[in-house]
């Protein structure tokens, strides 16, 4: 994004866990800060060196250690790229439990350190559930080997949960053992145009009830984001006459074991939606082939790139109640208008899209001609206060990094933050592990 710039003058690329251990031991003895870095796809400045700490890149540790096709348990080095892990398990008819737009560059160690959510969380749950074990180099250089491949192991405190989402502030994740689900035999998706945002909640309920266990993703795209996507050539998928003045769009994916069974459920759902007395949707489409399936996903996954092309984006990844998605986006737009900062001269677009099935909104505020302090001042702390007022999270899945340390208190109490500090003190008394991140 070009928003965060690091100050490191040294990058190390170890090949083994032992090397990582030696590096960290040395840094501890010399009080040198260490910034673990994966694929550098983070969005909150969590992997950059703020004060000339050395960057510890895990990219050279990219071996798959083992894969058991019966249980689906994969053990891999932290530097493995997510997409290459997907490709590794694919021939055995398994898939990774997470999937994100950055899959071609992000590394599994980074995914775990940020507790990445992604497009499949609705179906397969979070990494806190699918990660079975970790190998971590602690801030004193010692190696914590909890790389178990056991589904169940209730022997003492589950330390690995601390490192999942700790953003590299408690130790360096060097290997991971993760449960991979079986690949679906049948994948389909539908793209729907809704007249009003108010239809989202009843639509979600109907879809959940009728599709049941085969629903694997439920994504939201507001009208501003959809129009932007069309402008940049994503599509056209839907007939503009049928879309009309639709306020928002939903992409639903199904993954199941039997195509006939899934299609029957989908067709029943679509019949009910179209023939209701007061239809919840204007129109939509059902993918008719694998290439159409990919194109429908490409609309949703391509939005992030379009946003980069429109200008410099202020990105807010928040959790708010489903029913509040549109009002949050509208409130931010109103705010910029009231400050005279809405228009081609400043903020050209305010839009929302995201994993509405998980209550996760990606709010994108586009500064057409670049970041400016007055724009940031108008947005923050306004957005954080707005999210806090809904008892939401100021960072649903992107993490805190260096960008949101000042905003932590909007979603966590002082008691929580105090105890986070105590834990940090226990693991990293010298504060060498990714300093300046997560905790204010």
């Amino acid at each position, binding site marked *: 994004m070009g928003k965060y710039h690091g100050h490191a003058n040294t990058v190390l690329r170890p090949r083994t866990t032992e090397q990582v251990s030696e590096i960290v031991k040395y840094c501890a003895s010399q009080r040198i800060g260490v910034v673990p870095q994966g694929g550098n796809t983070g969005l909150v400045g969590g992997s950059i060196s703020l004060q000339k700490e050395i960057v510890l890149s895990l990219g050279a540790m990219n071996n798959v250690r083992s894969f058991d096709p019966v249980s689906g348990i994969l053990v891999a080095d932290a530097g493995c790229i997510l997409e290459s892990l997907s490709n590794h398990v694919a021939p055995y008819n398994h898939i990774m439990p997470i999937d994100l737009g950055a899959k071609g560059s992000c590394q599994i160690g980074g995914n775990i350190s940020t507790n990445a959510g992604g497009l499949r969380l609705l179906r397969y749950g979070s990494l806190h559930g699918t990660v079975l074990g970790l190998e971590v180099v602690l801030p004193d250089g010692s190696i914590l080997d909890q790389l178990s491949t056991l589904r169940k192991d209730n022997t003492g405190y589950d330390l690995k949960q601390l490192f999942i989402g700790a953003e590299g502030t408690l130790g360096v994740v060097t290997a991971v053992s993760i449960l991979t689900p079986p690949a679906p035999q049948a994948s389909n998706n539908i793209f729907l145009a809704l007249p009003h945002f108010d239809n989202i909640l009843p639509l979600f309920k109907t879809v959940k009830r009728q599709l049941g266990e085969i629903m694997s993703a439920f994504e939201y795209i507001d009208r501003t984001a959809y129009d932007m996507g069309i402008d940049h050539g994503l599509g056209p998928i*839907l007939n503009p006459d049928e879309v009309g003045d639709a306020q928002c769009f939903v992409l639903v994916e199904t993954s199941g074991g039997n195509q006939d069974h899934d299609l029957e459920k989908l*067709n029943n759902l679509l019949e009910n*939606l*179209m023939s209701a007395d007061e239809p919840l949707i204007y*129109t*939509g*489409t059902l993918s008719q082939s694998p290439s159409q399936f990919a194109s429908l996903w490409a609309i949703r996954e391509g939005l992030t790139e379009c946003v980069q092309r429109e200008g410099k984006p202020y990105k807010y990844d928040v959790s708010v109640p489903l029913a509040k998605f549109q009002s949050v986006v509208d409130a931010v737009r109103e705010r910029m208008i009231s400050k005279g900062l809405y228009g081609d001269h400043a903020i050209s677009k305010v839009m929302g899209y995201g994993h509405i099935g998980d209550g996760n909104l990606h709010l994108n505020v586009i500064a057409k001609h670049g970041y400016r302090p007055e724009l940031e001042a108008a947005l923050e702390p306004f957005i954080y206060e707005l999210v806090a007022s809904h008892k939401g999270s100021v960072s649903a899945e992107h993490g805190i990094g260096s960008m949101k340390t000042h905003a932590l208190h909007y979603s966590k109490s002082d008691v929580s933050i105090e105890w986070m500090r105590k834990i940090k003190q226990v693991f990293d008394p010298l504060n060498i592990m990714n300093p300046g991140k997560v905790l204010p």
Partner: protein
Amino acid sequence: MRPSAIRLLNILVPIKRAVDYAVKIRVNPEQTGIDLNVKHSMNPFDEIAVEEAVRTRERLKDVVKSIKVVSIGPPKAAETLRTALAMGADSATLVELPDAIIERQKDGVDVVIMGKQAIDDDAGQTGQMLAGLMGWAQATFASKVDVDAANKVATVTREIDGGLEELRCRLPVVITTDLRLNEPRYASLPNIMKAKKKPFEKLTPADLGIDFTPRLETLKVAEPANRVGGGKVENVDQLLAKLKEAGITAKRA
């Protein structure tokens, strides 16, 4: 003066259910064919043909009386026919068969639009053979189609090696579609719903009085030999030595 009666058009679109283009093709262990337990979809060129038929109706409106899609294949080809109905065809016919042969259908067909080739065998001969058997005009590899029903003429621009060629054909005509003719539409939900109610007829070869015994026998299917890697040479002398080794000698001009 009364205007001349507008001739109505019946369009026939034969389509084929083929292995999806994105699938990695593997030869089966018996070496008798390819692994067919993979995703299938409508042959992309046939998708373009259906799209062209629907666009022709959008252009000429009531002049197009009917768009019929037909497929010869296994029962699963019904799904592919339903997709065509959802794109805008009026009715579908499935001739159920374990193997494929050339089909003949007449009775009020003015224009046949079909894909130039199927992506599983790349034979590219069905359209031409059909035109030959019927004694009809043919315009293959079409990149632009204009049908003039009143004058019973189709003007077709086709892609050839040297560029583009324009043909004027008298109806009835067989047109085969090339990639640049159009971009097929997505099936919208209202149309998917309507498609379920459109007429769908199932036939067997016996109903048509045709003998389907194949006249071709596949002896063997095998993957191409593995490519052996090349090597790097240090200088020109080494290159000459390697060329001589390979039996390539210089000839005086």
